[in-house]
């Protein structure tokens, strides 16, 4: 399972999202999920199993497969809830 956080530059917003997804996985007690970040231009539909983006590039990210849209990139509660839902959608059991 691979989750990719995506933004326009691939350096700031997506990196922050990546780190917060890592934190959510740790809190949820899930291991073995690969997380990375990238810029929108370098990502294709087969780059990852799920793609996390901020709401402003949700439209541009259409066609990248399972796209998860975040209202805030620093709301850990939202990120954790959406990470857990994504894992379940992809058949990964969430212990907590």
């Amino acid at each position, binding site marked *: 399972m691979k989750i990719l956080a995506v*933004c*326009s*530059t691939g*350096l*700031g*917003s997506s*990196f*922050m999202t990546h*780190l*917060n997804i890592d*934190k959510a996985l740790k809190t949820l007690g899930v291991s073995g999920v690969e997380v990375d970040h990238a810029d929108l231009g370098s990502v294709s539909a087969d780059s990852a199993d799920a793609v996390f*983006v*901020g709401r*402003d*590039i949700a*439209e*541009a990210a259409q066609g990248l497969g399972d796209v998860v849209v975040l*209202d*805030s*990139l*620093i*709301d*850990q509660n939202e990120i954790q809830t959406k990470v857990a839902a994504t894992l379940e959608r992809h058949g990964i059991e969430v212990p907590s």
Partner: protein
Amino acid sequence: MLTELLTPDRIRFADDVGSWRTAITLVSEPLVTDGTITTDYVDAVTESIAAPGGTYIDLGFGFALAHARPERGVVRPGLSYLRVRPAVDLADDPAHPIDVFLLLAATGSAEHVQTMQELAMLLTDEDARTRLLEAVSPADVTSALPQIGQNA
């Protein structure tokens, strides 16, 4: 370390700035002055925000992490802070009111990784966010930073 990048001279407060473009100019000033970034970087950040979807730097809770690609004028890593009162709408979009502009000069180096880890930790912490929003002096901002060491 964030405390090394976000030094007191890079922390500013401004009233009635009126527009997000002025906010970007103001938050950039300390970094341009000390040679951390060139004015080209300021242009790149402004263009990026004005472009379609440019409001993606709105992290939520009134924080914006303004940045562009390193090759657009980053000389060395840096970070600056600007608190605007009242909030201004990013890209003139009322859906994106911003209270705190953070301007990130990133290089993509190992140091950038550490900076982002510290920023992520800081900004996901509700108490730290409140302190950064309520700050009225550089000391208020820098005192919110060391807390992340204790949470790590």
